[in-house]
């Protein structure tokens, strides 16, 4: 499988009045064509910042310090702002968490969709309108002709998210980045949206990056999983690898602390402690404060990424310890 997106050694920081925030430290992963990759992490893990860095949508005080991003064989840092703007919405589509605030309330859905299409394609307005109707049908919105004339507030949350997906898909992007697309939605609506995304992925051979904290969603739709903590990737591998053979203590901890349906009333095993402070990141491994297997070296040096088997590896000193028989 060819790599559609390659992220190599990405470092991103933010300047705040309280100091420099080291949001991303040496993030590297790839997304193949037609592949769905789940990026899992909690607050402060850097998962959203990674996406904003790819799209060059970081806030004014955000900087990509080093590393490169290669999309479809183009190095994104070589592109000008205008070229980047053309790329966004055209080859890379994005959907955000809150469909309530991502749509402009004073314009009709049709207006927003058509504008998006017109901007990125050479279609005439009437053609764009037809395409908009087609898209609404594609994402499962009933009576699309009527809906075009309606305003965002006349749609429910699930419908709005579908409209966001329609907008993101309007130019048939090669890559869809979905940042917590279903967190604000009900469980049954979430199921609909996930089925839709699976469907579209197959039909359009589209790659998806799904950013979420919900491991269940990742298990459902993704082939590959990237686990982030404290601005670094602590583990990545295929879905099967991550769920059935987790290597990193954080991944293991995460899997242990979510309640399972087949569990009895046995106690959950939480991960003690709090997510790290990104202004004063620990010198060594970001997870050292909360890790039950931490060793002296974990405090002192950042662990090196080691592959356990092809395509599955984690950044943890335990590998080194095991291999050296310590």
């Amino acid at each position: 499988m060819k790599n559609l997106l390659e992220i190599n050694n990405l470092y991103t920081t933010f300047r705040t009045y309280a100091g420099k925030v080291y949001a991303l430290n040496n993030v590297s992963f790839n997304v193949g064509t037609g592949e769905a990759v789940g990026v899992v992490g909690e607050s402060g893990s850097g998962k959203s910042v990674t996406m904003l860095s790819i799209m060059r949508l970081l806030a004014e005080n955000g900087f990509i310090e080093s590393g490169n991003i290669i999309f479809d064989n183009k190095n994104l840092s070589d592109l000008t702002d205008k070229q980047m703007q053309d790329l966004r919405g055209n080859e890379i589509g994005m959907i955000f968490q809150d469909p309530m605030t991502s749509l402009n309330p004073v314009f009709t859905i049709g207006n927003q969709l058509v504008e998006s299409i017109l901007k990125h394609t050479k279609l005439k307005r009437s053609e764009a309108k037809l395409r908009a109707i087609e898209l609404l049908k594609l994402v499962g919105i009933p009576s699309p002709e009527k809906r075009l004339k309606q305003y965002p507030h006349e749609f429910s949350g699930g419908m709005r998210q579908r409209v966001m997906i329609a907008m993101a898909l309007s130019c048939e992007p090669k890559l869809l980045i979905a940042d917590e697309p279903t967190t604000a939605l009900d469980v049954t609506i979430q199921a609909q949206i996930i089925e839709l995304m699976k469907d579209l992925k197959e039909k359009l051979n589209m790659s998806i990056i799904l950013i979420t904290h919900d491991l269940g969603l990742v298990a459902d739709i993704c082939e590959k999983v990237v686990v982030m903590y404290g601005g670094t990737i602590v583990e990545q591998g295929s879905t099967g690898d991550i769920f059935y053979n987790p290597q990193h203590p954080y991944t293991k901890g995460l899997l242990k602390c979510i309640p399972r349906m087949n569990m009895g009333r046995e106690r959950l095993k939480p991960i003690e402690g709090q997510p790290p402070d990104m202004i004063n990141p620990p010198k060594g491994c970001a997870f050292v404060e909360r890790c039950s297997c931490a060793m002296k070296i974990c405090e002192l040096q950042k662990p090196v990424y080691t592959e356990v088997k092809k395509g599955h590896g984690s950044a943890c000193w335990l590998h080194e310890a095991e291999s050296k028989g310590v």
Partner: protein
Amino acid sequence: MELSREELFKPLNKKRYEKAEVATRPSLTYWGDAWKRLKQNKVAMFSLAVIILIFLAAIFGPMLSPYSYSQQIRGEENLGPSLQHPFGTDSLGRDMFVRVLYGARISLSVGVVACIINLTIGIFYGGISGYFGGRVDSIMMRIVDIIYSIPTMLYVILLMVVLRDKLENLLKLPIFSGLQAAGSGLISIYLAIGLTYWVSMARIVRGQILSLKEQEYVTAAKTLGASSFRILIRHLIPNSLGSIIVTTMLLIPDAIFTESFLSFIGLGVDAPVPSWGSLADDALGSIRTHFYLLLFPSLAISITILAFNLFGDGLRDALDPRMRK
């Protein structure tokens, strides 16, 4: 100290996570954060310095001057600015410098008193209206709307005319002997301005309360069994303080101007009390010959109002709940 391989890979036994670690960011309250931002605003800080200077001049200036504001010095009428009389003298030989400084006292006291009356009435009126909502709110706000629709100047002038006479008689009563020195003119100004501006404050407070009412910590307080009074005093008003302070700060220049205007048209303080407005009024006659008589009071009004406005703007920006991330 170089550690051996064995030592490096020894497990850490101690509980590294503090059971409850608090954020390592410097601990700043809302006010501390606002003050930090305000300090960075050079214009606002400069205006603050000017305001402090004016206050100091108003309090200590007249005390340090060899002249009193009503002292008429024969033979020194209509003198231009000089070392002895930095702002010159007027047609009755009174030192303008001490008169302008005294005028500062008048203006600032009007600002402060207007502030106090305005805060007291405005906060409670707005607080009650906003908190109870519904019918109560509708009626209370309609009253405010009516008052608001009357042009301020007209309203104040009407109040002054009505109050002045009443106060004249009232102040003759022995219990008010202390206030007599201030003069019925000044007291009626305090009252008139105080009774005018509470309306804006009430509106602002009500608006804040309406939006804060829906906050979850208010619901939590209700769940705990807090009375409406407690919720207003402990929860709603403290969280509205930002808006209240800014509104007040921006109201002072308004009040000062209104007082100056009233004195200018003769409805304000009684002679010989030197309000800047009355000084300007007196100076109108000799505008061509002794232009400095008008210049200094006018400058005083302008600078004071500008300083308060600029500081108020800076304060509004600093208190803006743009939460730092």
